[in-house]
């Protein structure tokens, strides 16, 4: 069985890689298998983890009995989950055109909850803490950090400040403001360059992982 599994995995890997040469039936077959399996897999995962694992087990917790039939472990049912389930059913009303508008209620609930949570999370982590992190000394005789650190601090402060200027929409980018915005966009572009480099590294890692499988696990040519 292990041999079959290895050959199937290798067949699919090579099929997907064959797209690099050109689009071909082998690739299309592998892609269709991938799409079909992933859709089925997610359906099963969501069903067992959410509907069964969370809702059913939560509302009807299984009772555990010992060898003589005594209850050894009882968990209190969580009836609040029924509220969620009802909202979930209302979401499906979208499928019936006449009462499709009802699906907006659970949607409003979701949007309201996530907005509230995100507002605080993002505001606190991505604004307050970042402003705090940018308050750093640029020079100073008593300053104990190295020149390297001071240069780093200057880059962070100028980069953050000019980056904010670039995304300031209430003033036209002219004069000193325009020049500062230009520094901002250059900083952003350099960041994107670094990000691009990291992405190349990530994609190469995936390829390396597959090569390791093909030449190691499958063909056994490498350690």
């Amino acid at each position, binding site marked *: 069985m292990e041999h079959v599994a290895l050959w199937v995995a290798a067949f699919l890997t090579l099929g997907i890689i064959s797209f690099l040469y050109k689009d071909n039936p082998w690739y299309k077959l592998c892609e269709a298998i991938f*799409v079909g399996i*992933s859709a089925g897999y997610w359906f099963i995962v969501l069903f067992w983890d959410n509907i069964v694992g969370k809702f059913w087990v939560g509302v009807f917790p299984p009772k555990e009995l010992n060898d003589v039939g005594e209850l050894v472990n009882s968990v209190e049912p969580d009836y609040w989950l029924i509220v969620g389930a009802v909202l979930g059913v209302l979401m499906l009303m979208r499928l019936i055109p006449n009462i499709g508008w009802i699906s907006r209620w659970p949607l409003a609930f979701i949007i309201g909850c996530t907005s509230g949570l995100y507002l605080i999370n993002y*505001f606190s982590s991505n604004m307050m803490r970042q*402003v705090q992190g*940018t*308050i750093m000394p640029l*020079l100073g005789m008593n300053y104990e950090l190295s020149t390297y650190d001071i240069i780093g601090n200057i880059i962070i402060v100028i980069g953050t400040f000019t980056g904010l200027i670039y*995304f300031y929409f209430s003033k036209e980018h002219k004069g000193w403001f325009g020049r500062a915005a230009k520094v901002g966009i250059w900083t952003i572009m350099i960041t*994107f360059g670094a990000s691009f480099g990291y992405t190349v590294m990530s994609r190469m890692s995936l390829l390396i992982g597959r090569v390791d499988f093909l030449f190691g696990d499958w063909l056994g040519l490498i350690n």
Partner: protein
Amino acid sequence: MRVGKSTFLHLCLAFSLSLILILILLTLVSAQEVDSLRSSTDSAYTIPDSGLVLVAPVTSLIAEDYKYDDGEQLKLSWVPSIDDQLVDSKVLGYRLFRSIDGGTPEILAKLPPGTNSFLDRTVQRERKYQYYLETFSENFVVQSIVTAAISPEREWLNLDRGWLFIIALFISIAIIFFVEKAKRGHKLYVRKIAGLEAIDEAVGRATEMGRPVLFIPGINDMDDVQTLAALTILGRVSRTIADYDSQIFMPVSRSLVMTAARETIKTSYMAAGRPDAYSDDMVNYVTDEQFGYVAAVDGLMVRERPATVFLLGAFFAESLILAETGNSVGAIQIAGTARPAQLPFFIAACDFTLIGEELFAASAYLSGEPRQLGSLKGQDVGKGLAMSVIILGVLAVTIATAWDVEIMHNVHNWLLGVFSSN
């Protein structure tokens, strides 16, 4: 009622000041509660036998409720034994004992020398707890006083996050103010955005070449604000297409987006006076599956060879695949997303890219919709605040470290305190 700028500022100031006042009052009240829990007397000193390594007990042992939690922690603090020294310390450590509801004391923790506080995280609101500490040397143990019985309390408000609340409130008020202002017909200025000017040009090119325009609104649903921004821009694009009598096709990966996009394009064609030219086939649903959708769109691009491709909305790993295919068929590409990880690919492979918030600004600029314009201006107030604080903070800390100016140290510490209130 018209709200002037100065009235608005006064209102903000008054509100902020009253909040600060409430914060101070609440802090004073809680400080009094702590004082009442403080145990005043220290324990008696044990008379030693000869040959023993004598150590003094810890003093001022206090057990207090840990502020602003769900009632699940108690905080202990004390002054270490005077024999607890960094060098040649007689004290080998401390043993913390706890009794629950007046029961037999049990050891809770062994603590190393030099410790002067402990956070008991294993307490319950319904129980009362008492603590004492044993200081021990090689052959001698001395006990501190026992604290008064205390239960942890649950606080409804986390006043440690007061400043977070005040600043969020300030920006929210600014957003509401500008939204209201825009609703009352005031013209709010938003600077021009480079990529937008290219829209007409790009659609014109497609018309000249007799090839269609492809519009992809990302792969997220209508609950993503990026999709909403993309559909607002679609309104403008489809209006130009209707005017130029060009063609548009729009494969989508979400059913709700399909319905909304059809409505948007239909409205544009009606506004252009050509409702007959509109067809539901312009927008079609493909699949929710990310790479299944990408494969279909790629195939469509290769077969139809659009002259112009719009990639606006929320994109993930498919961004480069789509942008690269569009590039390979020679299309002019206008892209925009607020996902930082995908922007480098769009910048590399597309002709114009709306970076991050520019996507929302473009949407507000094109629609002129009060809520979008108002929130954009309100966010600018937030950015202005952040920039001011950065300048003030950096100046303060630089001057403070360079010339050791006391007031600047205070300003720096105060700013750090305000912005660390998470």
